[in-house]
Structure formats: structure tokens, C-alpha cells
């Protein structure tokens, strides 16, 4: 039986009169693949910010790998984020003047120590070994997102958090990225992805639906979850 890696207990986030999250309860086991879906303003990004140690809840507790991060200060949250979380962004957020491998090494630098061979290996895992010395502007959107994934994975995080990771990609690149997620899931990486895209949401093991800051559905997709087909999304799309 898998151990709990993340637990949200009655988590709320309030901005003035707006309740972005309202009494959220969520439990995630190590190795799970979750997709969080919902319309704009439903609280998806707020939730991922809290899980990613970039924000704190107004009330409730967030237990990450046995540590309550809801009461930690900014410096501790930075340390926890650095050690336990890998972040993937919709807009990639690569540093424009650094090459692909250097972008990966930046994450190493702030975690421990840059190691170019490790960074190259991470790029190789996402199929970009031959593009390691290219600047972001010389890479396609899909390639940039794969560099972003390599950067997120370089420090062996316990949770991979993606905020609309396929939002800026075409269908083909979307498939490639989802394939990478699938492979990572097979390797035991916990993946939590916020997405608008139902096709991407559907390939996850579990789907959480948010609306007005509340969890309105928690769907177990294990039955339809394709563990072996690396072209799952493409097949679904067809």
C-alpha cells in the first residue's frame, strides 16, 4: 500500500471577501497521478500554489511528506519547495540567455551543485540530448516544455507539479509531454497537474474537479487508466 505524500485538511484561501478555496480536503498517495480540473476562477492555481509552497492557506493544514507546511515561513517554504517539488509552467519560463542544459543546471545550482553530466542525462530522458546547447528561442514550444520538465526533475522531487503544462502546446507535443508524464508515473513519480484540457485530465489516474473553490468531484480513473500504451493520448484523440 502506497504512503500518503500529501494531505490537505479543510484548506481555505481567502482574499478579502473572496474565498478562492473553501474547506478543501484532499489526500494524495506517493506515485499517484492527479489531474485538477475546473473552470477559470475555480481555485486550481491557488491550490497548486499552496501545494507548491509558493503560498500558504488562510486556514487548514497542508501536510507534505509528513511536514505541515501551512505554518512555515517563507525561507522554510523555499527550502521545502527546492527539495520536494518540481514545477512545470504553462509558459515554460526558461531563462532566455541560458542554453537548455544551463537552464536545467540553474535548478541544480539552487538545490545543491550544478552537474552538467546529470543535466544532460535529464535532457536525454526527455529526448533533447541533441538540443542541449540551444537557447530557448531556438527550441520549439514542445522542446521548451520538455526542458522545463527536465529542470523540474533534475533534483529528484517527490511531487511534480504542472500548471497547464500542455496549455501552450500543439496536439503532437501535447502527446509527447503526456507520454513523458506517463513514463515518470511508471517510475513512481507523484504527478499533480492542473489542466483545462479534458483529454489531458482524462489520462490521469485520478481527476479532481473544482468549482467555486470546492471539490465537487473526485473521480478514480484507474479502470480506464492506460499503463502501457505510450501513445494513449494520441489514440484517444483519434
Amino acid at each position, binding site marked *: 500500500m502506497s504512503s500518503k505524500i500529501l494531505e490537505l485538511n479543510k484548506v481555505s484561501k481567502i482574499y478579502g471577501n473572496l474565498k478562492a478555496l473553501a474547506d478543501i480536503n484532499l489526500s494524495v498517495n506517493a506515485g499517484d497521478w492527479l489531474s485538477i480540473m475546473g473552470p477559470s476562477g475555480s481555485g486550481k*492555481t491557488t491550490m497548486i*500554489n499552496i501545494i*507548491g509552497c*509558493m*503560498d500558504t492557506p488562510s486556514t487548514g493544514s497542508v501536510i507534505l511528506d509528513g511536514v505541515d507546511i501551512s505554518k512555515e515561513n*517563507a*525561507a522554510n517554504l*523555499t*527550502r521545502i*519547495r*527546492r*527539495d520536494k517539488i518540481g*514545477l512545470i*509552467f504553462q*509558459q515554460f*519560463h526558461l*531563462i*532566455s*540567455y*541560458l542554453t537548455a542544459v*544551463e537552464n536545467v*543546471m*540553474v*535548478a*541544480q*545550482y*539552487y*538545490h545543491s551543485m*550544478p552537474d552538467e553530466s546529470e543535466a544532460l542525462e535529464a535532457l536525454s530522458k526527455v529526448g533533447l540530448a541533441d538540443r542541449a546547447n540551444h537557447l530557448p528561442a531556438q527550441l520549439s514550444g514542445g522542446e521548451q516544455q520538455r526542458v522545463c520538465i527536465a*529542470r523540474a526533475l533534475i533534483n529528484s522531487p517527490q511531487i511534480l507539479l504542472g*500548471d497547464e503544462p500542455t496549455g501552450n502546446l500543439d496536439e503532437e507535443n501535447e502527446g509527447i509531454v503526456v507520454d513523458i508524464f506517463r513514463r515518470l508515473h511508471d517510475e513512481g513519480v507523484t504527478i499533480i497537474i492542473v489542466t483545462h484540457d479534458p483529454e489531458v485530465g482524462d489520462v490521469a489516474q485520478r481527476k479532481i474537479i473544482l468549482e467555486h473553490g470546492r471539490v465537487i468531484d473526485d473521480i478514480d480513473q484507474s479502470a480506464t487508466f492506460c499503463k502501457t500504451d505510450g501513445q494513449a493520448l494520441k489514440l484517444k484523440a483519434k
Partner: protein
Amino acid sequence: MFWHIIMKTLIRQRSKMLMIAFTVILGVSLSTAMMNVMLGVGDKVNRELKVYGANITVRHKDAALMSDLYGLNEGLGVNDKFLHEDDVLKLKSIFWGFNILDFAPILDGRVLMNSSFDVAIMGTWPMKHAVLSTGEELNTGLKSLRTWWDVSGEWLNENDDDYVMTGSILASENHIHVGDKITLKNGGHEKIFTVKGIFNDGGNADSKILMTLSSAQALMNLHGKVSSIEVSALTTPDNDLARKAAQDPRSLSPEEYETWYCTAYVSAICHQIQEVIRDGVAKPVRQVAESEGTILNKTTLLMVLITILSSIGSALAISNLITASVIERSQELGLLKALGAYNWQIALLVLAEVMITGLTGGIIGYFLGIGFAQVIGQTVFGSYIEIAKMVILIVSVILFFVTLIGSIPAIRYLMTLKPTEVLHGK
């Protein structure tokens, strides 16, 4: 990776970094120029002020007492107290002898002119060339102390014992012209002199006759005697220590005494003069000495203010440029935070970029400032300004703090920058 990011940022943001460097160059060059001028200006301003004449007068102690007590400068008890002419050159042997720029002995007296009326005479070294015991050659004399005199005809030379110069009022009242002969008599001594020049002093001297010291001594039968010595010395403006010493040097502690003695305060120089002139009392000519101090202090204050203002201006300009640069890069810096960089690591990154730019600008600005200082020295004082090494240290400290203070708004912005705000494009 740290330096790699910095170097790439410097190259990528070169236009902004060049603006920051340019601002630093302006500020540092101005500060360097002003401080070098400020530190080197003392002697230069003092030399400029030498046109106002002597700033120290040495008299016989009893004559000085009469002057202090009763305001008497002539008459019994004043005119019969003399210094020794052979002591005069000893002025150059004092500790601050190098600061003694010019001096001239004066012998005052009254004689009968053309057998008709009394006239005041003033015997002096009009120009004097001497070789000191140290082998140093010296050119001094009253001509160097009366630069403002308007002379028609010629100045007396060192050995013009048969010539005199007359004051403009005396010449005008008695219709004396250059080339005229006048007879001067005192007791049994009588001599005919030729008027070589007529001077306009603007003061009491315009009613006097100026002659060589030896002529006056012969006429007055006072060989080897002088009434007073006028001294022009480079001095340091008085401070509390100098004022305390001026009251009584014995009130100083040994450390204070050493500091005072080894600083060119007018009181210290007077004290040292008294050590070599027998029975002499040296007194500063307050108007001149205080004017020198006042002008020097005001010049220094002006330059300090310019330095401070230029530093403030640089800090403000740097602040705007760095803040603009950081805001432009907020997404990148927010990303670094999201990847696990602490606030201090981001601040260090930005500070290092700014410090490298500032240092580059500072080095260029320093050498440019030295150039400015020389331009000022040549334009205002007609000579080069000596480069003070301590300016490097002062400018470095100013540069460090100006850059640091200029970076504060940007650092504050960085501290409050939330990755979520910049990475989600909110």
C-alpha cells in the same frame, strides 16, 4: 553558475548597465576631482591669498607690548626697541621653514626731507637674494609682499642704496617725480637720493619713503637693527587645538603639543619664529590669517557639498536604473525563487551585477576625475593638483555606499516579489 548568470546578464542588459556605469562615472569623476582639489587646494588658495601680503608680523617683545597695551606703533618705547638683522634669515630654519614663502625686515624712522619737513621712512630688503647655511638659495623681499602696489618708475633693487621710492601722497603733495633728487637728513647723517619709483599702496605707506635697509640703518645710525619683520607663510586654518595653543602652548598635553607643533597653524609658526628671533614676538595679522582660513574653509565646504550632492544624484539615478532593470527581469528572478533561491541569493545576484558595473564605472570615473582635477588646477590655480592617494579609499567607500543605497529600492522590491505573481502573469 552564479558568475555565469551575472556575466550573461551584464551582456544582455548592457544598455542599462552602461547607463548605470555612466552614472557612476559622472558621480565618481566629480567626487574624485572635488576631493583632490579640496585636499590640494589649501596651499593653492593660500598662495593666491599671498597677494594680500604678510600674515605674520615679528616685532621686539617690548614694542609689541606697547602696541598691545596702548595701541602705540611709534614713539618712545616703541621705536627704540629693535630686532637683529642677522636673525632674519633664521626664519627659514624653523620646522615650518618651507612654509615661509616671503619675508622682509622693516626699519621705521623719521628724517628731515629737503631740510624742510619730517617724513617717515621705511628701510627694507626690496629684493633679496641670499644663500642659506643649508646651501638653499633664497629670493625674497618686500616686492613679493606688496604685489598690489601700483608703481610708476621702477622698484628698488637689492643694492640701490642711492635710490628711494616715495609714496604717491608724499610725491603728489611735494611734486616729486621719478628721477628727482631729494635730500634726507637725520642728525649728522645726510644723503641725497634719486627717486626711482612712486608707489601707490592705498594705505599709510603712501606718505612714506621706501629705501634699502642699509640706507635706512645708515641714516638712522642703527646698523644691524630692524623694527619688525613681515612674514608671509602658508598656514592651516585654526581649529580648537590651535586656538587653545594660541592662548598658551603650555596648556597643551604632550600629545597635543606635538600635533600642534607639527601642523602649520599660524600660532605654531609664530611660536617657532619666536624660537629663532631674539627678543621677537610673532603675531598673526588677523585679518589676513582669518581671511585665509575663512576662504579655505568655505572652498572646502563647497567642494564637500558638491561631492555629497553628486553622490546623492548618483544614488538616485542608480536607484531608478536598477529598479527598472529588476522590474524588467521580475519574471526571471521570480522563477529563480520558484526554483529554490532564497531572497538573499537573489539580492546577492543583483548586487553583484550592480557592484561589477559600479566598480568598472568607478575605475573609469576615478581616472577621469583626476583629469578633471588637473583641468581645474590649471584653469583656476595655474598649476597641477597633487593626487591624494587617500581619495582612492574615500571614493571607494562612497562608491560602495552609493551603489548599495541606490540598490535598496530594488532589493526591497525583490524581497516582496512573489513567484506566483510573476509566473502566472498576474
